[in-house]
C-alpha cells in the first residue's frame, strides 16, 4: 500500500468509533455497574449500602428456593436442547439437501417464526393448550377424554413452548453445516454396503458435529434465559431463573441480590455451555 493509501486508512478506521462508543456506553458500562451493585448490601430502608461483599452470591447459592429454581431451569434447558437437537437434525438435513424454489420457501418458513416475538407464539400455544383450547376440543370430540385435560400451566407446556421457540435456531445452524458435507460421501458409503443408519452414524453425524456443538450451545443459552414462555405457559407455580431475576427488581427491589442472581445465571449458562462443548468434542476424538 502506498503512502496516500495508508493515510486514507485512518479515517476509514475511525468509522468504527460511533458504534464502539455506543456499545461501550450502553452495554459495557451497564454490565460493570450491575456487577458493582451485586457486591453491595441490601437495606430495606435505604435500598442499598455501598460495600464490597460476596454475601449476595453466597446467600443465592445456599438458598434452597433459588437452588430449586436453578435446578428447574437447568433441567428444562437440557431437556429442551436435547429435544430440539433430535427434532431439528432430520429437519435440518432435509432443508440442507433440498434444492431450488422449495428450499427458499422452507427456509423462509423456518426464519419467519423466529422473527415473530416469543409473546405472540406463547399466545398461540395458550389458544391451543387451554382448557377450552383446540387440543382439548379435539380430545373431547374424539370421545376419549370427556373432561378437559390440564395442559396449560404444566412443565410440558413450557417445554413445548420453548422447544418451538428455539427449533428454528437449531435447524438453521445445523443446516448450514450439513450443506457443506459432500453428498458423494454418503453415496460412497451406501454403495459400499453401509445401511442408512450406519451412514448417518459414521459419516453424517461426525461431519456435522461442529453444527451440533454450535447449535446446541446457542439453543441451550436461549433456553436458560427463557422469560416470556415460562411465565405465560408455566403459570405462577413454575419459576425459572430469568423471571426470578426480574422479580428481584420489580417486586422486592433487592437490587444487589438481583444483580448477583443475574451474574450467577450468566456464569452457570457459560460454564455448562463450555462443559457441553468439551464433552461433545471429546466424543469426536476418543483418547
Amino acid at each position, binding site marked *: 500500500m502506498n503512502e496516500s493509501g495508508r493515510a486514507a486508512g485512518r479515517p476509514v478506521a*475511525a468509522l*468504527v468509533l460511533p458504534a464502539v462508543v455506543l456499545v461501550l456506553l450502553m*452495554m459495557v458500562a451497564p454490565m460493570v455497574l450491575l456487577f458493582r451493585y451485586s457486591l453491595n448490601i441490601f437495606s430495606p430502608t435505604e435500598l442499598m449500602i455501598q460495600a464490597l461483599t460476596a454475601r449476595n452470591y453466597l446467600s443465592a447459592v445456599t438458598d434452597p428456593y433459588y437452588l430449586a429454581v436453578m435446578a428447574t431451569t437447568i433441567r428444562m434447558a437440557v431437556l429442551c436442547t436435547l429435544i430440539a437437537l433430535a427434532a431439528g437434525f432430520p429437519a435440518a438435513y432435509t432443508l440442507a439437501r433440498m434444492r431450488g424454489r422449495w428450499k427458499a420457501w422452507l427456509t423462509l418458513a423456518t426464519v419467519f417464526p423466529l422473527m415473530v416475538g416469543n409473546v405472540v*407464539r406463547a*399466545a*398461540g400455544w*395458550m389458544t391451543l393448550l387451554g382448557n377450552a383450547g383446540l387440543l382439548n376440543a379435539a380430545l373431547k370430540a374424539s370421545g376419549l377424554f370427556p373432561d378437559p385435560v390440564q395442559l396449560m400451566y404444566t412443565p410440558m407446556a413450557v417445554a413445548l413452548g420453548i422447544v418451538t421457540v428455539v*427449533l428454528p435456531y437449531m435447524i438453521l445452524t445445523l443446516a*448450514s453445516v450439513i450443506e457443506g458435507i459432500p453428498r458423494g460421501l454418503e453415496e460412497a458409503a451406501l454403495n459400499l454396503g453401509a445401511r442408512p443408519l450406519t451412514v448417518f452414524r459414521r459419516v453424517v453425524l461426525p461431519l456435522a458435529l461442529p453444527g451440533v456443538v454450535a447449535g446446541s450451545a446457542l439453543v441451550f443459552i436461549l433456553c436458560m434465559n427463557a422469560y416470556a414462555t415460562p411465565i405465560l405457559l408455566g403459570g405462577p407455580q413454575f419459576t425459572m431463573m430469568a423471571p426470578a431475576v426480574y422479580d428481584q427488581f420489580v417486586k422486592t427491589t433487592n437490587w444487589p441480590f438481583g444483580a448477583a442472581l443475574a451474574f450467577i*445465571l450468566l456464569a452457570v449458562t457459560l460454564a455448562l455451555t463450555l462443559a457441553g462443548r468439551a464433552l461433545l468434542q471429546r466424543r469426536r476424538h476418543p483418547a
Partner: protein
Amino acid sequence: MGVWRAILWRGGVGAVFAVVLLPLVAVVWLSFFNQEIIAFPPEGYTWRWYANAWSQRQFASGFLNSLEIALIAASIGVTVGTAAAYALVRARFPGKTAIAGLLLGPLAIPGVVLGTGLYVFFVQIDNAIDFQIVATLPGLIAAHVLLTIPWTVRLVAASLQGLHPAAEEAAANLGARPWTVFRRVTLPMMRAGVVAGALFSFIQSFENLELTLLLTGPGRSTLPVEMLNYLEFRVDPTLAAVATVQIVLIGALMLITDRFVNISRVVA
C-alpha cells in the same frame, strides 16, 4: 421397506415444521372468532376484534410506541453499524477482532441480564443528574439501538466481504472525491446488506421483550410488553388480532428482505 422409511422420514420432518408454525396459525384463526370466550369450533367469523384491539388504548399506544422506537433505533443503529462494518472490512487497525466481537456482544449477552444492567444504569443516571431516562421513549430508543448495531454489522459486513475494493480505487484514481466515491460506488455495493440490516434491526427492536421490560412506564410501553401484561390474565380474540397484525407485518418485511439477501445465511 424403503418407501415406508421415506414416508416416515418426510412425515416426521413435516411434523417438526408444522409444530413450529402451529401456534402462529392458531392465533390468526382465533382472531376471527365470533365469540369472545374461546371455544372450538367457532360459532362464526368476524373482523370486529381488529377494530376492538385498536380502540383499546394500551394496544394502540403500544403499537405506535413500538413503531416509533423501532424506526428511530433502526435508523441510528443502521447508520453507525454500517459505518463500523465498512471500517471492519476495509480498514486495517489493531484490535480489529476484539472490536468486531464487542460490536456483536449485545447478541451474546442474554436479554434479561442486559435489561437489568440497563435498568440500574439508567436509574443511576437519573439520580446523578436528575434527568429522567427510565420509562421514557429516548431511554427505550437508546436501549434498542443496542439491538440494532450487531445485526447491521453482521449483515453489512457479510455483504461487503465478497466485494473487491478495486471499483472504489478506480473511481478515486479517476478523480472522484471521497464523498462521491462513497455515494456513487460504495453505497450501491452495500445496498443489499444495508437494507437487510435495516429490516432485521426494525424487527428485532419491534419484537423485543426482555431488554424492554424494566424500562417501560405508564403510557411509555411497547406492544410486546402490553401483550405480555394482557396475556397474564387471558387470551382472547382481541389479543389474537393484535398478534395477527404483528405476524402480517413481520411476514411482509421478511418477504421484502428475502429479495435483497439470502435469508438462510443471515441467521445461522
